[in-house]
Structures are given as C-alpha cells and as structure tokens.
C-alpha cells in the first residue's frame, strides 16, 4: 500500500503547536491516528519489555539488596559502582573480555573475508556451500560450547590424540583455556561475519574489478585497491555487530571453564553477583556498567570510525 503524505508546510518560528494541529488536513490526522493505532500496541509492548527492565536495573543498582534478605535492603546511591570500579576483579575480567573480543573478532574478520570470497566466487554448488558454511552459526551456543569442551577434554576429547598432546589439560591453565574459548567462539560466529561481508562483496559492481583487471592490476592489488575500499562500510558494520556480541560473551565460558582459571568475563561477573549470590543491587550495577560499555563501543564505531549503518540495510548503493 502506498500513501502519499502531503508535504508538511515549512514551520514558522512563531507558529504554536495548536496552530499546527489545526493546519493538519482531516486525512493527515486520520492517517496519523491510524498509524498510532497500528503501531501503538507494539510500541507499548516494546517499552514494557525493554524500557521497564532497564530502568528497574538502574534503580536496583542503587541499593545494597540481597534477595535472601529482603528486609536488609538499603539505599547506597552509587556505592555499588564504587565497589565494582575499585575491585581489581572487575578490571581483570574487563581485560579478559577485551582480549577475547579483540582476538575472536580479528580472526573472524580474516576467516570470514576468506569464506565470503569463496561463497561469492563459487561457480558450482553455491547454495550447498553457503549452507555448509552457515551451519555452525545455526547451532545453539551452549551446544557448540559443549562440543568443543568435549573435543578439548583430556579424557574423551579428540584434540589431544589428533595432535599427539598426551593428556594435556587445556582447561587447566588461563591461556590454554582462553584459547579453547576463542576457538569455540570463532568456529561458531565466523559464518555470521562472512555473511555480512558477503553482502558487502555483492555490492561491488563487477565493472570495477574488470576495469582494474584491464588496467593490469594483480589479484592482491584488486583486493587492496578495489574490493576492500568499496567494502569498508560493510566491514565496519560486521566488526561493530561482532564486537558488541563478543564483548557480552557468556555461554562458552560458562560451559567450558565455568569461569575457572581466571577466564571469567564481565557477563560472568554480572551472572555471579545476580544469580549465584542473589546480590541484585550489585549485579544490576555490573549489568549497567556492561551496558554502558557496549553503548560506548557502538558510539566509537559509529562516530569515530564513521560506520554507516544504513549500508547494511541496502539503503545506499
């Protein structure tokens, strides 16, 4: 259905709201009302399911509140935030989260780009190839984490016997345990990265590449001078999405190491305070900080790296 909305008259500085309302035609008003009636329930539902918990978490984060001791609830204002930010554990886990994020996203970018090229260039069995590459992304994270935990296990895993590592305990040291977590994450989410990159790759007109080839550009030069610059927006969007995701990593760590050997991440910190310790106030404060960090990452990408989100929707060519 296509409705042509009459162009709104230019607003005069002296014009009041009431005056503007009168100027609306009957049709425009009805359409606006219809719009609210159609979108209103969804809007209210959205506010209820997302807005309320967010505001509630912020409110709760100002209290020292343990679920098993409801009477002991006291208002501590920003006390919980002070506790968190002065605790070395928070910074340690921030570091672990950052390492996992940087390592997994970088590796995924390289691998994802390779897979996107393969999917884009494949001449035969294109659909089968794409499905095969996307399968890991379709697997539930908990399931993939279990699969990798078993794979790296020193009692029944195949990794040690495959590489002749004897009974090396992958989960017994911080770095080896983090390595396994990163492997599981990379395996699981590289397809997502490659899918986003494939969308960017498909937007590069073949003419550019043909022109470059005619001009005598080598394959590497074509990638560096034509493909990558034209894919910049898609790459940035892919990086943004994956960074936001990777920074909130929880499932793989929970299943594979249960946070032992200093592999706990920030989401794990929030989980432990809120769910295990039922310290709802402190846990909410960790969650709020985590949310702020995620927003900061998004702002960094959008404002500093000038990531153009409209690219992903195909609004621009």
């Amino acid at each position, binding site marked *: 259905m296509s409705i042509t909305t009459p162009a709104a008259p230019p607003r005069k500085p002296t014009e009041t709201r009431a005056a503007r309302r009168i100027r609306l035609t009957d049709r425009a008003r009805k359409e606006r009302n219809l719009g609210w009636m159609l979108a209103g329930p969804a809007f209210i539902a959205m506010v209820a399911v997302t807005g309320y918990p967010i505001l509630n978490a912020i409110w709760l984060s100002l209290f020292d509140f343990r*679920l098993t001791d*409801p009477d002991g609830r006291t208002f501590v204002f920003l006390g919980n935030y002070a506790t968190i930010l002065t605790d070395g554990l928070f910074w340690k886990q921030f570091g672990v989260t950052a390492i996992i994020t940087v390592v997994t996203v970088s590796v995924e970018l390289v691998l994802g780009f390779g897979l996107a090229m393969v999917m884009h260039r494949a001449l035969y069995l294109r659909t089968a190839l794409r499905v095969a590459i996307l399968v890991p992304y379709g697997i539930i994270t908990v399931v993939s984490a279990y699969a990798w935990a078993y794979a790296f296990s020193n*009692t029944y895993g195949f990794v040690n016997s495959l590489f002749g590592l004897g009974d090396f*305990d992958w989960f017994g040291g911080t770095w080896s345990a983090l390595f396994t977590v990163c492997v599981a994450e990379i395996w699981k989410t590289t397809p997502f990265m490659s899918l986003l990159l494939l969308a960017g790759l498909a937007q590069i007109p073949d003419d550019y590449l043909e022109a470059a080839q005619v001009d005598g550009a080598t394959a590497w030069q074509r990638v560096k001078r034509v493909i990558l610059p034209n894919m910049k927006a898609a790459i940035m969007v892919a990086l943004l999405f994956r960074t936001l995701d990777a920074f909130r990593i929880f499932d793989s760590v929970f299943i594979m190491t249960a946070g032992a050997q200093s592999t706990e991440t920030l989401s794990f910190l929030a989980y*432990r305070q809120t769910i*295990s*310790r*039922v310290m709802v106030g402190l846990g909410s404060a960790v969650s709020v900080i985590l949310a702020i960090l995620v927003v900061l990452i998004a702002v960094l990408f959008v404002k500093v790296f000038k990531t153009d989100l409209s690219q992903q929707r195909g609004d621009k060519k």
Partner: protein
Amino acid sequence: MLERKPRRWAAASALALFASVLTGCGGGDGGANTLTYYIADAAQESVATRCAGESGGAYQFNIQRLPNTAAGGREQLLRRLAAEDRSMDIVSVDPPFMAEFANAGFLRAFTDAERQELSQGVLDGPLKQSTFRDTLYSAPLYGNTQLLWYRKSVLQKAGVDPSAGPVTWDQLIKGATQAGVTVAAQGRRNESLMVWVNALISSSGGSILAPGSENLPANEVKGGINSPAGATAARIMHDLAVSPAAPPGFSTAGEEDSRASFQEANGGFMVNWPYVWAAFDSAIEEGSLPANFKDDVGWAAYPRVEAGTESASPSGGLGLSISSFSRRQDLAAQAIRCLANEQSQKDFMIEAGNPAALASVFDDPEIREKFPMADEIRTGLDAATPRPVSAYYGDVTGSIQTSFHPPGSLSSQNTPREANQLLEDVLSNKRMI
C-alpha cells in the same frame, strides 16, 4: 469476503495458541491433591511413584527435575523461592544451602511432632545439617560421606595400608608417588572443592567460619581460615596437586573425573562418595571395566591430616523441605513421611547408591550384601562434619572456591590470609567474587 477468511482463521488460531500458552504458564499445579516435587536425583522419582500408590489417592506427584550440579540446583530453587513460586510444594535441598533458604523464610519449619517423627533414628551427621537455629527445616532423605578408596594391588608397592589403620594425606601422596599411581581428589572449582577444603580444615580442628557466626549479619561474620588449620589445608592441596601422584587435569577434576582416574591402569587411591561402588557395577555391565575390577577395590575411613587426630569426613546428602509458599503444606508433610521413611531410603540407596540417613537401613541384610562398606559409611556419617552453617553460604563457598583454586598455586603462607580477607570483604560487600 473470500480473501478475509484466512485472516480470520489466522486470528482465531493465533488466539487459540496464545490461550494455550497462557494456560501452559498457569498450569503445572494439577489437581488439589497433586504435589509438585522438585527432585535432584532420578531415583527419587521411583520412590515417589511408590509413595503415591501407597497413599491410596491421598496425593500424587508432579515431578520436576533440578539441574545436575549442586550450584545449578541451588540457583534454580533460590530464584523460584525468592519469586514466591506457589507451584512448588516439596523441594530437594542440598544440606549446606538449607540455612540460606531457611533464613530467608523460604522453607516451612517442621512442627515439633513432625520433627520427632522425622528425626527418629537418623544418624548424627545428616540430622545436624538438617537443622538451623534448632529448628528442623529438612527431612533427611539420604546422608553422604566420602571414603578413601584404594586399589589393593598397589598397596605393597606404595608402602601404605589403609585397611590396617588410618592413613594421612602425606602418607598417601608419598606412597602413591613411590608406586607410580595416582591419588584422585576433587580439584575442580565447584562445590566439590569446598567439600575438600572443609574436610581438611575441620580434620585439623579448624573451621571455615569463626565459631558463633551462624546468627550474625553478613558484615559481622568472621572467617576462621587464617589459622594453622587453613595453612595445613593449603599445603596438603598444593603438595598433592604438584606431585606426580596428581592425576592429569587435577585442577578441573570433579567426582566423575576422579572415578575415571581411579579406574585407569595407574589408579591407586581416591576420595569420593559411596555412589562410586554402584557406578563401578554400571561400568562393568557396560564392559568399560573388567568383571573382576571390584575385587581389587578396598575402602577405608577418610584420610587424616595429622596421624593422631581423627579425620572429619565430608558430609553431604539431601533433605526434603516444604516451600513456605506452597498451598498444600500439610499434604506435603504427609507425603514426606513416606518419601523419607525407611523403605524409601533403602530403595533409594539401592537404586542411586547414596547412603541412607537412617541408622537402621545399614542393618538391612540386602543393604549389607550390596554395600559391603556399610559399616564404614555409617561410622563416617556419624563423624561427618557439615560445611559451614550460614545464611550467606553462597558467598562463603564462592570465596573459598575462588581462593583455593587452582590447588597447584596455593601457598600455606598466603592462601589462608588471602582467603580469609576475601571472605570477609565479600560478606561485607567490599569486593566481588
């Protein structure tokens, strides 16, 4: 009109689906005589079926299974009880978590008459951990204690013989190293690590919390780890973890990993719960162990820390409690009388391999035949030392698990001090775990 029909149908089916989802949410309560029973072990279900049958229709059960791990079970119960979930009637509570729930008012206290009936003939260890502030909150379904398991064939080479008299951890580590075999214990960072730490500290006369902490508010609770007992515990754990007697993957080994190590060709000694005896049978049936494996297995009391001091063996088990938010509390109490009676405990012991809490079950001829170590278990249960009784147990165990892991990096000088500090800081909300 024709075009509209499918939409109407779609709307109708969406409504029907929505309604069924809603009923699904509200349901689960069943009839007026249906009790929702949260079980922690699959074997509880067959006992429940028998009890429901015997009740002559007075009650029936809607069985809900808790997560496998102790921590997972605690979290689910805690969340639901804190939300005042009225659909829970009987809950299976791991004893160390009972105080936390009882203090929060989540559990209905048993009346004096019920207490007398439910605690009659119950062994000391399981009974102690079912009471909080002198009130019974859990009916002991089973008690549990760890034993020292050994392979008879390695004793001579190791130069230790637990069957001849009590042995110490130091003797075990030295002997196993000498014989080239392993000493399996639970070094994994979960509740089983807390069990080990508590047993070691208690065995040398110490305690994780300072005496009298039970009724104090969180920020006044004092730790008792920064003591010679704490230092000895850290030393023994470290010594075992770095010795050749530590099985591979020691810092990530739970009970089942310990059993796997013990079953290996170089398995020598293991501390573990008695369920392993029934588990050996299953492994033999499956063909993963030779038929005569159990002939080589011996058992003895939990290892000592000091030769002259009796060991405080770990205490575990399961209690049945009634939710304060249940609408059928009296019916639940009636059902618990059957679920935890002698017959039920015996059936449960045979099916799950977990020891009964009632002393009389250990005299049963069938039990004595199936569990040749029945006497050692009974003695162990009587001497078992519960983990700290605290309304803040979650924080206590979390702090211990953080500070005493990985066992290989512990030091008798620093670990007790740091663990004590962390525990007190966490309880007074100055630090996180």
